[in-house]
């Protein structure tokens, strides 16, 4: 069961395996706590803020792309 917990969180397991895990979890506080800590780890990772691309880098890239297009056309 331990090896399938990420698939369980991701909803990637067959329903009967999910039910088996649900049944075990209902009577196993240590496994409940472990699953919660794994779920929270995933949530914290997903909660990391997005990186922004600086405006000057966008301008540089657009200019570089424009030049490659022009050289390709000529």
């Amino acid at each position: 069961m331990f090896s399938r917990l990420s698939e369980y969180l991701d909803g990637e397991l067959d329903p009967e395996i999910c039910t088996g895990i649900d049944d075990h979890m209902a009577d196993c506080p240590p496994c409940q706590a472990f699953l919660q800590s794994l779920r929270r780890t995933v949530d914290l990772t997903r909660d990391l803020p997005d990186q922004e691309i600086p405006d000057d880098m966008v301008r540089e890239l657009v200019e570089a792309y424009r030049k490659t297009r022009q050289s390709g056309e000529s």
Partner: protein
Amino acid sequence: MGPGCYGSPMETVEADAHLLDAIRRDDPAAFESFVRRYGGRILGFGMRVCGDQEAAKDVAQETLIQAYRSLKDVQDPQALRSWLYRVVSNACLMRRRKKKYEPRRELSLEELMPSGSEEASIEIPDARALPDDEAAREEMREAVHAGIRELPVDYRMVLLLRDIEQLSTRQTAEALDLNESTVKMRLHRARLMLRKVLVETLA
């Protein structure tokens, strides 16, 4: 208690379909739209894989134009991100290999299982209930970043694509040229390792 549901967001697929349409029509604004949509994500991914900002910037500059040119041939909007991250992952790995040789390290499940000595009282905080204090939130984010940096690069890339870039298992497998079972195995071990690092950091 049911399973969580971490799926591939539908709005992402729709936005990618619009973007691909603009690229195929040769819309003059499409390249800038593409850069604004994916440039930050590519920079962030490059930072976390290559380990420094300069390398990430170089990777983004090298790959955004290269990947964009190939996107005209991509028919399925769901394949856009797999294709893009395939180009970027390869560029990051090439750059890392030039820098230093890194032995491949597999993580065994046994070393990632909770030990008997693990502090039962240590609770990983809920992302939706972090303190209002910005300094405390930033400290937690830095702990997550540090944990991600400790992952072996093969595992780190899978975790980044699945949990940060939110690619599906199939898209991640396509991007990294792996089978889906390997993606699932590496993702699980990466999450377990990150969890272990967070528990140790919070102890």
